[in-house]
């Protein structure tokens, strides 16, 4: 709402102050301090994982073109290794499918809460490294409730969980409904998906998601998901989400946020981070 107010204000100011207001498209690509494509590495690990995944791709420079990411962006020849502090390591191979991930079942390589892990990626003799620490605790989902709008087909899902006391915590929340025909309907929590306990500590946190209930049969499986994540995940996801909502470009009153990067190496941007996932399954039943 406040953003709306200020954007309206801008429009009014512009039209009042300046009959000479103008908008120009000019070739200003040379004014960027760095226009090189970067390497993107994303990997999130948790004790609840059955498969370890790493995604590696090259970015596209978008100024002057509008190249979408396609298969050619994915790096397939990298050497990817995840190791723990006891020098146990696991090499993760590229799996040539539509996900374009490096992935491998966890097997004997265990991801444990409170432990540190390292990622090493080598692409064409360039080395990239990162470390992460899995949050020690997993939260438990306390309450949930479905609220159906009597005047429309929309419904709300409320998830309630207790914040972990005496420490800074960051959460990513989600939910999905899986029908008996295996159709997955995700529930949208919008910006409320990313939570921190910087306002409260140790108290209950409630988050509300919205979905269209019109085509969901009773008896479907409703999966509630709350992940207790490292701060880097929270800051990176939240920044990206806000940038997307703000039009993926600078606005007059809003500056584009810089997502967190914790990968070391030249010309690289990405995230290697840990989380603990809590899930609760209930049977969907619309009265």
């Amino acid at each position, binding site marked *: *709402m*406040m953003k709306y107010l*200020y954007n*309206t*204000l801008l429009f009014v100011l512009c039209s*009042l*102050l*300046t009959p*000479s*207001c*103008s*908008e*120009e498209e*000019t070739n200003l690509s040379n*004014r*960027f*301090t760095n*226009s090189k494509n*970067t390497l*993107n590495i*994303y*990997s999130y690990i*948790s004790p609840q*994982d059955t498969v370890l995944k790493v*995604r590696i791709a090259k*970015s*596209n*420079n*978008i*100024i*002057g073109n*509008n190249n*979408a*990411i396609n298969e050619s962006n994915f790096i397939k020849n990298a050497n990817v290794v995840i190791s723990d502090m006891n020098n146990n390591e696991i090499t993760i191979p590229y799996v040539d499918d539509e996900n374009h991930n490096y992935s491998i079942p966890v097997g004997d390589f265990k991801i444990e809460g409170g432990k540190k892990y390292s990622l090493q990626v080598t692409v064409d003799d360039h080395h990239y490294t990162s470390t992460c620490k899995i949050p020690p605790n997993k939260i438990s989902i306390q309450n949930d409730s479905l609220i159906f709008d009597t005047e429309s087909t929309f419904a709300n899902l409320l998830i309630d969980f207790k914040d972990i006391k005496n420490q800074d915590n960051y959460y*990513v929340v989600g939910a999905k409904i899986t029908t008996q025909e295996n159709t997955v309907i995700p529930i949208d929590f919008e910006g409320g998906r990313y939570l921190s306990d*910087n*306002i409260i500590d140790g108290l209950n946190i409630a988050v509300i998601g*919205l979905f269209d209930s019109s085509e969901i049969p009773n008896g479907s499986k409703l999966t509630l998901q709350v*992940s207790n994540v490292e701060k880097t*995940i929270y*800051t990176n*996801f939240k*920044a*990206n*989400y*806000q*940038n997307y909502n703000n*039009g*993926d470009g*600078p606005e*007059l*009153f*809003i500056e584009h*946020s*810089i*997502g*967190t*990067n914790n990968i070391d190496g030249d010309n690289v*941007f990405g995230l290697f981070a840990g989380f603990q*996932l809590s899930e609760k399954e209930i049977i969907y039943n619309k009265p």
Partner: protein
Amino acid sequence: MKKTFYFILICLLTNMKLSAQHNPDVLKNKISVTLQNKTIKQVFIEIQNLSNVTFGYSNNTFDENRLVTAKFNEATLLEILKNILPNNHFKSIGTKILILKKKGEKNIISGYIKEFGSQEVLSGVTVYMPELGIGTTTNNYGFYSLKAPSGKHKIIVSYLGYKTIEKSLNIYDNFIFTPLLKEHTEALETIVLNNTKMITDSKTVQMSVSKITTKNVNDLPAIGGEKDVMKTLQLTPGIQGGIEGSSSVFVRGGSSDQNSVIIDEAPLYNTGHLFGFFSLFNGDAIKSVDAYKGAFPARFGGRLSSVIDFKTKDGNKEKIHGKFDIGLLSSSLILEGPIVKNKTSFFLAARRSYLDLLLLRENKKSDSKFKYYFGDINFKIHHVFNKKNKLIWSNYLGTDDFNLIDNSEKEDKTIQDPTKIGLGIKWGNITSTLRWNHEITNQLFLNSSFIYSNFKITNSIDASTDLESLHLKYDSKLNDYTFKMDLDYYPNPNHKVKIGAKNTLHQFTPNALKYKDKNLDEVNNDIQLFQKIEAYESAIYIEDTWTLNNKLTIAPGLRYSFYKNKDSQKQHLNLEPRLAFSYNLEKDMALKLSYSKMNQFVHFLSNPGVSLETGLWVLSTDKIRPKSSDQVAFGVVKDFNDSGYSINIETYYKTSKNVINYKEGAGILLAQKIEESINWENNISIGNSKSSGVEVLLRKQKGTFTGWLGYTLSNVTLQFDDLNGGLKFKPPYNRKHNISVVVIYKPNQRWTFSANWVYTSGTHVTIPNQRSVNAENTFPVSSGNPYHLEDYNYVTHKGNFRGQPTHRLDIGLQVHKQLNKNVKRTWSYSLYNSYARSNPFYYSVKNKNDKTTITKQSFLKIIPSINLSYKF
């Protein structure tokens, strides 16, 4: 003859020893005498007749013609003489009494320097005694004090823009000298009659200061004809502007909240009308402005980067005067005059914009309405109780009111339940200062002030249908209550001491929120949230300007500041040393060096992105520690006296700690939850700043052509753990090169031509230029937002795009005409950005025809203005 010998003494000295041993001391003789308005000379004759003594003295020992009224009953001659001549001492030789000057004793010359015709006190006026090589300048209240030996001495009083006064004074005793300076009326006449008699920059220890007079402001072209002091300051080195057209200033790499903007000693927390495009200051109400960028005297504190000290006019004590100004955006009226002639004066300046009045008709026709206006009032009363006591009450009241009602849905008959939307932003300052000036002695001047400052901004949104209404209001407000005392002490010509104390109670409500949602069922879902912070800020200080010899002057100072937030146990006690040196390499050339430590306890949270000065003012808390800075500056100044030119080159290095900024993705407009906007502390990142630069000012202050050339080379780097991945970055206000050329040409009394050309390097902007697979795409927590399926645009570093440089030429012309003895008319024409340069206001990214391009938004291209003013 200036040098006279004690002729009687010479005669007497020859037999002094002989007679002194044998005669009783005549000074112990007792007499009774009544003196009624008699000169000293007459008194001596009377005493001679009564006690058979004679007096010996030189003709410059005291003022023979001074009148005396006193009554003595059986008093010794010594008692009588001490009473009527307190600054002399006496010796008896036989029946002769010698009256001598006290060894090394000097007389104090003090007083106020005022303007002829209005009796407006003038600060910063040079009072100089060339034969003795001593001089001083008047303080903020026009008071000065000098010590000089007895004798006949020349005294020169000079001030830029006023005719210099030269007088010979017979000084035998303490002396009150209060000359009235006449303003220059002849344009062709040199502004400075004789620079050698002025205390120019090369002769003061103060450095890093920009001085602007009302004349500078009034002579220069301005957008919409709004004479703007802050925009004139932007034309001086080291003081940079914000976005195109804005009146906000950034000084030596500091953010805008690091400027202490003071009007008659009261702090102003917002300095802009129309979202910062025009400054709050009615140019006609301002007497002078001193902007300190470094080398801060110890009397100033509380902000890191600058002190911008505005002094308003006191009001004419002799005659009613006024000025009426009609512009395109606003009109103003000034009225000043005596309430009690030569004793009490008033000054009133009022200004109002009238865009809303012009739109009245349009608003009546339409369901949708727009209203905006700004206005301000300066009001002052100056009362002289007596020569030693004055009371000054000055007030400022300013407001901006923006309202928009959108009822366009009502006209669309297809909409069943049309929504009416109302948007409003209103902000304003109120300040009030009550000052008592008291001259304790002719060497000791006291100013005591009670100061009140208030700032409030309200953002409101109303949405209503026939079924439901919603009202959301954000308030941010603050009140400051201050008491301060400043003592100016002039012990001797080599020292000028200032001592003072200040205590402020801050009451801040950074964000108060009211939310009302009323539906058909009459169920109110009201929410009221606010946070209130109170704190004490106090300081004591001492500073001295110490002239060690003709070449070296030092100005040591110490400020001890105290801050305590009422909700915190922690007290912040800080020593803030200040030191400045000035060494004269030659008569008109000086090297200067200074060091200042500053602390700041109030902070401004502005929107990330372009700030329109509508953020939140907050106080230091346990989480948000006070900011501090250390600044070193070195400079050289040379005055070319005969030509009126001067050059000033300075370099500085400044580091600041605990500077604050919103965390990545946080901001007033980005709060996801109501609580987030109230609990601002959790969204703050704390970091450091480093800035350095070189400033050059070549100035011409004499002749028909005046003006200056300013150049600034600067570099600012910020570092915050929570921003830009912890890496250093350049803030948007970092502009490497700044050039300003200002020319004012006054060929005669009728015409004033002026022009200024400015060039600034582009700002640093953050623009995403890379596209990647979505970082969240492989995260296993389900999302219903389509965003997670898409690629996303990102940028790896803040400020990755260097905007284009800004430059423009503004030109102005003023035509003055004296309509009759009392009325002067001035037509002012100005052309802002005369060659229509498309200067960037902001940049945006656009996707068009499968191509991503950067778009530059510009405005303020060729803005013509016209103003008409009548001065009476």
